């Protein structure tokens, strides 16, 4: 049994028993030992006294050689049971007389000779030697041997008594301790019981009774205090729990509410997105719907203006020009709005190409001439030779510069507008800086903060006075950002403004998409000097106004225009006339432009003919993918169209390898819109 796992009661009793028994046994043993030692001493003294008496009594007998008398004297020891041998030695050491009570002669332990006075314990016997003297003269030696029977009997008896005593007292101690241990074990057992009740029943209202004010009493007090504390906390916990439950319920309600709200919000978001999509679709439709009549207005007004100019009706020419100008302005506004909505929708991509900065600037300034002339401003362009090629979205760079420059012209009267282009290295990169400086009305610091935000002209009155949508700078800002460049303004009211644009000399794309074709340098934008031959141009468009305008325009340029109103007719004519170039509209009844383009490109005889898409549909990639050579958005910039067609005519006449010339990369540069903020129609 493991002592350590004994119950407290058992332990206490064991301790008491062991302690008392040990003490008892030890004290009894020491007493016994002491008694036995002193008893032995007594026995020794007794034996020595005996020896003295015997010696005295036998001295005369020895002196007178009376053996019988000596033996008789020794025989007196019969009464002493423990004496096993008594011998008288003559002075010379021989045995004179002896006495052996058991009568069996010499015990083996008998010393052969007499020895010095004294006693010794030898082989379990106590032996005494004593000189026998007569009047101080030694007449012999007495030897007594005791078997210590008395001593061992006593020892045995004592041990038995002690044993019995220990047994009895042990029983007594058991009895007493079994009663007394309750003093200690009872409160502990009670405490244990109380604890069990607490732990099994979770009943914290139980209290242990305190019996005495000893340590256990204090323990019980502590236990009770602890219990009340626990009870207190338990109650508090319960309360907190309840509260938590309530709160959780509330929270759940809240969550449900929020979820509902979220769903509603989501619904609202979807609705908003739908609305936004609807808006975009509306805008796209609107742009189409707006551009189609504008196309006609601008086109016919241009035609009329030219005709009136030719016929010298100058008064009408002035009015026609106003119509033309208002139409163009309206177109630019629509384009701005559409651009911005595309930027907002994230549908505006970059079309990277490498181009000559000087050519672009030159072209841009040329197209800006009417605006420059309007307020009689003076334009200075500074363009060092080291700034040449740049890789960026040329259309957007041009549009940025055009916006800045036209703004400068618009807000400057009789002043000087300077464009300063330079190239420098910054932050481990080559940058091209365009700085447009004017001497105009300037912009206040407060206005500068809102300058690049949409629909915010510096002042509401400005739009009334100067016109414009206020979108130009916002669009420019977005474009600069798209090309990872920077745009900034320094200005003081009345002191003129300076706009600075930094663009990387090599703009890179974040994603692999976007860039499709790269312009192979500067294509000649200037007009060619060759004599026009009657090359055929096939115009496929369902809109009679477009067919009419295009035919007239092309005829003017010196081409033979053949118009087709439907896809079938277009395809048939293409086979019949083998045109130099085909212009193709997309939105047509029955069979759309994409199908026509696909059919054209799949026909081996027709595949070589360049196709210029002329449409309101803004899906340039689709056109290029299907094999279109160019993509123009209606209303068509007739100058651009002229340049393009002229190029094809030139290429056909001068080069034998037509396929190379007509390849799309070579042509892509031509899609830039010269004056009206033309945007690369790319998604």
């Amino acid at each position, binding site marked *: 049994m493991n002592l350590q796992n004994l119950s407290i009661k058992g332990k206490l009793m064991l301790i008491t028993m062991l302690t008392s028994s040990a003490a008892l046994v030890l004290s009894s043993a020491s007493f016994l030992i002491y008694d036995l030692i002193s008893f032995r001493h007594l026995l020794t003294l007794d034996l020595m006294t005996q020896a003295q008496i015997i010696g005295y009594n036998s001295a005369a007998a020895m*002196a*007178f*050689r009376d053996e019988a008398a000596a033996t008789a004297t020794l025989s007196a020891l019969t009464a002493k049971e423990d004496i096993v041998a008594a011998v008288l030695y003559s002075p010379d050491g021989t045995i004179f007389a002896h006495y052996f009570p058991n009568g069996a002669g010499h015990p083996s332990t008998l010393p052969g000779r007499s020895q010095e006075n004294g006693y010794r314990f030898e082989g379990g016997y106590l032996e005494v030697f004593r000189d026998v003297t007569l009047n101080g003269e030694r007449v012999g030696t007495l030897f007594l041997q005791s078997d210590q029977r008395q001593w061992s009997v006593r020892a045995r008896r004592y041990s038995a008594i002690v044993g019995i005593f220990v047994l009895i007292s042990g029983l007594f101690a058991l009895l007493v301790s079994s009663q007394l241990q309750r003093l200690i074990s009872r409160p502990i057992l009670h405490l244990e019981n109380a604890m069990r009740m607490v732990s099994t029943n979770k009943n914290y209202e139980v209290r242990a009774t305190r019996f005495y004010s000893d340590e256990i009493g204090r323990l019980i007090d502590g236990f009770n205090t602890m219990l009340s504390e626990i009870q207190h906390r338990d109650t508090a916990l319960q309360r907190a729990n309840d509260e938590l439950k309530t709160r959780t319920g509330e929270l759940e309600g809240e969550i449900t509410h929020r979820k509902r709200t979220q769903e509603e919000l989501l619904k609202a978001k979807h609705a908003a997105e739908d609305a936004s999509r609807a808006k975009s679709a509306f805008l796209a439709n609107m742009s189409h719907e707006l551009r189609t009549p504008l196309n006609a207005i601008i086109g016919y007004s241009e035609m009329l203006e030219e005709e009136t100019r030719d016929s010298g009706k100058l008064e009408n020419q002035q009015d026609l020009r106003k119509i033309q100008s208002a139409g163009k302005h309206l177109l630019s506004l629509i384009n701005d709005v559409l651009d911005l909505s595309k930027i907002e929708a994230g549908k505006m991509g970059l079309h990277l190409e490498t181009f000559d900065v000087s050519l672009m600037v030159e072209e841009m300034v040329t197209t800006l001439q009417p605006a420059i002339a309007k307020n009689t401003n003076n334009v200075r362009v500074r363009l060092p030779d080291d700034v040449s090629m740049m890789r960026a979205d040329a259309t957007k760079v041009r549009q940025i510069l055009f916006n800045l420059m036209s703004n400068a012209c618009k807000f400057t009267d009789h002043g000087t507008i300077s464009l300063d282009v330079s190239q420098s290295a910054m932050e481990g990169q080559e940058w091209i800086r365009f700085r447009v400086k004017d001497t105009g009305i300037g912009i206040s610091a407060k206005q500068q903060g809102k300058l690049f935000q949409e629909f915010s002209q510096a002042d509401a009155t400005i739009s009334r006075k100067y016109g414009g949508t206020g979108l130009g700078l916002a669009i420019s800002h977005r474009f600069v950002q798209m090309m990872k460049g920077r745009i900034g303004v320094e200005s003081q009211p009345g002191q003129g403004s300076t706009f600075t644009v930094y663009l990387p000399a090599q703009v890179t794309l974040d994603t692999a998409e976007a860039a499709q074709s790269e312009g192979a340098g500067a294509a000649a934008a200037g007009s060619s000097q060759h004599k026009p031959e009657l090359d055929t141009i096939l115009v496929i468009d369902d809109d009679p106004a477009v067919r009419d305008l295009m035919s007239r325009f092309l005829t003017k340029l010196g081409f033979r225009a053949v118009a087709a109103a439907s896809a079938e007719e277009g395809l048939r004519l293409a086979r019949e006339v083998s045109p130099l170039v085909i212009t193709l509209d997309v939105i047509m009844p029955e069979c759309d432009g994409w199908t026509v383009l696909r059919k054209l490109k799949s026909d081996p005889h027709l595949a070589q003919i360049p196709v210029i898409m002329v449409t309101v549909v803004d899906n340039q990639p689709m056109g290029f993918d299907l094999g279109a050579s160019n993509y123009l958005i209606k209303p068509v910039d007739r100058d651009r169209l002229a340049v393009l067609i002229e190029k094809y005519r030139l290429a056909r006449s001068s080069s034998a390898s037509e396929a190379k010339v007509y390849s799309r990369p070579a042509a892509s540069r031509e899609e830039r819109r010269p004056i009206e903020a033309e945007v690369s129609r790319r998604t």
Partner: protein
Amino acid sequence: MPIFVPRDKAIMRLLRPIIAMGICLSMALGASAQALDSSDSSEYLIKAGFIYNFAKLVGWPQGAFAQPDSPIVIGILGTDPFGGIIDRVLADKQIDARHFVIKRLKWGMDLKGCDILFIGSSEAVHLEEVLHALKGLPVLTIGETPGFARRGCIINLIVEDNKVRFEVNLDAAKQADLNISSRLLALARIIPQSAADVR
């Protein structure tokens, strides 16, 4: 000095007198015992030792000795049976501070200076007269003739079974004012005074 170690009870019995004599001699002579003259003289060697032991166990009355170291005078009356033995035995002995002085005496000489008087067998006829002469005097009379004790000699040595024993006449001792130790008496054969000799 030869030591006999008895091996057999028969031998033991045979040798006992000789052993006894040897022991006695050694007792008498002590550690410085000298070699025996002859086997004839061994009896007297023992007797001389007895006389020495008697002197130890007999108390003389006060005033018997003039000085604490006054010698004990032993007179040998009649024919000397000791030869020189007794002189040799007692030569170095002393009791308390007293040495022994031995005188050879003849019948008719003054006996009063003696403390112990050995009366030889030759003086048997004069015994009563000798004793009468010593009457009232603290003189230990010792004889070696049968009947001496009964006749008034205080101690009489006898030989029984080849062993020297002695008789004591207590009345005589009382008359001589001598105190004989009970230890001595325990070994002695007590002889009563004959009625005829009571004076």
